[in-house]
């Protein structure tokens, strides 16, 4: 079969094609987004595909499709599963007829996330099977198996790759893509699909009765496997298993866990053949707790003995250190050289010409001592500009803002939220704030797209996931429908206009909404929009540093003068800020 060098998520997407997926939906979130991005870019799509407005909406859509007997996948990042937790828990009761795979991608080390929660705990909680790949190839191979398992047991199956799987690459052996397609058909069965108490009590019992057979099947499928080689054993899951395999000394047994729930009988047989067992896994001690339950007098090393870290991401050198500490490896083969010291940091930064920078500048100018709740998106980088005081989860800027406003806090509250995040879970917060009379200003940073995760369209874009034109929702109308009476749309590149509207909002009571609308600068570049570059007249420049403090990567400072480099996108905000008018469009001095 064909072999390709693919990103983990591309391999997962291809495996969906091989499994004959019929229904694809999800909400973008790093590191999960490229699965749908790959599937929506296919020249032929014999499946329905959508970017949903949030994960709860996505999962309920996918669940219904699976009730109709078709194969559905629903993708999200780990924290998205919190939003979808409500349908998840009960979907285990109702079950499915068509295969339903819920891909929830975990992010150990929180490379691009607000926490390091472990999706395996959700699977345990919901009592549904969970597959946990250790490599790109395994992630690919598990997808058709996940659909088959889902159909065999009539349960949703959680697929939990981590960042190091989703954003790893490898040469992947691909399978054939079938031609057949299915059509959904809903067969009414209220005892299955209407979870009134009388029905749900029965369904809960059925769910529990499925468990022993699931545990056996996961071992038979080879997801959980072991090899006895001595009196010491290492048990590992996920990407950690690959690091262990590279380091494993002769005569040490190895067990690889790739699926949950783990069969206790099988696990106990293995563990009790050893004197000492080391468990290596990322995040929660899911495997370790199962091992401890069956260990008896066998010594178990893991997180609970302080041998392995509870947080962060595993690495080859980290795993070597754990194995050395537990006495499994004589000495780590990795020297740990010190990194270069005192280098200026280069964190991610808002792009040159990003609309958010202009909006934050105006907010800070008008509301100098305000409290700035913010949200999840590129604009969280406004932290570097001192314009972000809180971020907790999707949609929590408006709600945190109204909470602060109602707490007795006397400072102004100005919150920022992106368009996609507002549509995800911000609307309810706005409705609640208006209804309950909060005093606050809400700035919707409207760049017409879900930018941070890779420019996925949303209901505000005017395009569906498959590129079909659709009516772009009116944020103004949505906000007014929520009861807001002060709703103003303004271009954040227009500093004076932005400042004036904010000043107007500051004078008023109640919830004021400002929609700061301007296209994402990356979208603009891709569309070929050229605004022309700006330059600093060195003779006029006084070196005051106003433009440099604006924090745009296109503005540098050398020899007591500002200068604009070729990253400039022509937003012209710096030209409006310069107190001596030293900045103007190239060639227009």
């Amino acid at each position, binding site marked *: 079969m064909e072999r390709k060098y693919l990103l983990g998520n591309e391999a997962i997407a291809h495996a969906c094609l091989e499994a004959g997926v019929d229904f694809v939906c999800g909400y973008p979130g790093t590191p999960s987004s490229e699965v749908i991005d790959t599937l929506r870019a296919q020249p032929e799509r014999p499946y329905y595909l959508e970017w949903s407005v949030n994960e709860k909406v996505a999962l309920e859509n996918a669940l219904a499709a699976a009730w109709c007997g078709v194969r559905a996948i629903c993708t999200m990042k780990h924290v998205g599963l919190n939003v979808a937790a409500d349908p998840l828990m009960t979907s285990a009761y109702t079950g499915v007829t068509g295969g339903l795979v819920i891909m929830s991608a975990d992010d150990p080390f929180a*490379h691009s996330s607000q926490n390091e929660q472990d999706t395996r705990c959700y699977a345990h909680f919901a009592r549904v099977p969970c597959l946990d790949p250790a490599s790109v190839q395994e992630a690919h191979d598990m997808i058709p198996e996940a659909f088959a398992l889902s159909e065999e047991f009539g349960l949703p199956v959680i697929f939990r790759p981590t960042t190091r799987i989703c954003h790893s690459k490898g040469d992947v052996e691909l399978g054939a893509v079938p031609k057949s397609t299915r059509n959904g058909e809903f067969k009414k069965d209220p005892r299955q699909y209407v979870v009134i108490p009388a029905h749900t009590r029965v369904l809960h019992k059925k769910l529990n009765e499925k468990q022993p057979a699931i545990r056996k099947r996961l071992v038979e499928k080879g997801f959980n496997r072991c090899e006895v080689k001595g009196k010491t054993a290492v048990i590992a899951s996920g990407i950690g298993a690959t690091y262990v395999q590279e380091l494993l000394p002769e005569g040490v047994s190895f067990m690889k866990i790739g699926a949950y729930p783990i069969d206790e009988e099988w696990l106990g047989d293995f563990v009790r053949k050893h004197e000492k067992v080391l468990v290596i896994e990322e995040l929660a001690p899911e495997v370790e707790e199962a091992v401890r339950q069956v260990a008896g007098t066998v010594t178990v090393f893991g997180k609970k003995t302080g041998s392995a870290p509870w947080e962060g991401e595993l690495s080859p050198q980290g795993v070597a250190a754990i194995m050395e500490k537990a006495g499994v490896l004589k000495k780590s083969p990795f020297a740990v050289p010190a990194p270069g010291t005192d280098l200026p940091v280069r964190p991610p930064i808002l*792009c040159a010409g990003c609309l958010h920078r202009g909006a934050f500048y105006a907010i800070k100018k008008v509301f100098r001592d305000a409290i700035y709740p913010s949200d999840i998106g590129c604009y969280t980088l406004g932290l570097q500009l001192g314009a972000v005081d809180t971020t907790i989860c999707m949609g929590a800027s408006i709600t945190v803002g109204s909470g602060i406003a109602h707490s007795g806090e006397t400072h102004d509250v100005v919150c920022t939220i992106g368009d996609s995040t507002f549509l995800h879970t911000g609307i309810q917060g706005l409705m609640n704030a208006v209804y309950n009379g909060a005093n606050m200003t809400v700035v919707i940073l409207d760049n017409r797209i879900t930018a941070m995760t890779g420019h996925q369209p949303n209901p505000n874009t005017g395009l569906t996931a498959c590129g079909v034109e659709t009516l772009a929702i009116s944020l103004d109308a949505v906000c007014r429908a929520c009861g807001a009476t002060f709703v103003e749309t303004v271009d954040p590149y227009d500093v004076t206009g932005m400042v004036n509207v904010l000043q107007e909002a500051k004078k008023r009571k109640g919830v004021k909404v400002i929609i700061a609308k301007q296209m994402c600068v990356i979208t603009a570049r891709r569309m070929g929009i050229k605004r022309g570059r700006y330059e600093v007249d060195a003779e006029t420049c006084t070196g005051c540093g106003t433009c440099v403090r604006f924090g745009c990567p296109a503005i540098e400072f050398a020899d007591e003068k500002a200068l604009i480099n070729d990253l400039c996108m022509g937003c012209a905000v710096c030209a409006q800020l310069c107190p001596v008018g030293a900045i103007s469009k190239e060639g227009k001095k």
Partner: protein
Amino acid sequence: MTGSYDILIVGIGGQGTILASNILGEACLIEGRHIKGAETHGMAQRGGSVESHIRINGLYGPLIAPGQADLLISFDLLEALRYSHYLKSGGTAVVSKNLVIPTSVYTQKLTPPAEEEIAAALKMHGLCLVEADRIATEAGSPLSQNVVMLGAASRWIPLKPESLLEAVKRLVPKKTIEINAKAFQMGRDAGGKS
């Protein structure tokens, strides 16, 4: 340790590290070799420091441990220094002379290291400095700097130059094949001179 040849490509989000990784991957496929890689995606890319791990003949995990890389390819001088501890003793750094001063230097009033200081600090390794910007412009487009860098590094990469060149041709946009093929060859020549 397991016979893989480990390459770390570093730079700044947007400089084309991912395309460089894809070219190496494609070249491995051409030669029928296994390859593992890991890279930075998502918001972390927005102008931030990015890294791409590539393990030719890799069979296990995708990450390279510090002190284990055979080759460091850096699209920026400062980033080369930031990641130089990943090189093993006897490893080689192929580094673009390009230096983008991080915005943190201006907003936090930090002192950036001078070009000569960085080059001196990197001298403990085999060092090949490449005028990627100039060479790419000569080849026809400053956007081909990543391919210039791959060309320069190809002296050390255990893949046939023909495979790498073929991979370049397969992966760059059609209109730019000629420029990139030239960029690869000119980069390779520059790598040989140092």
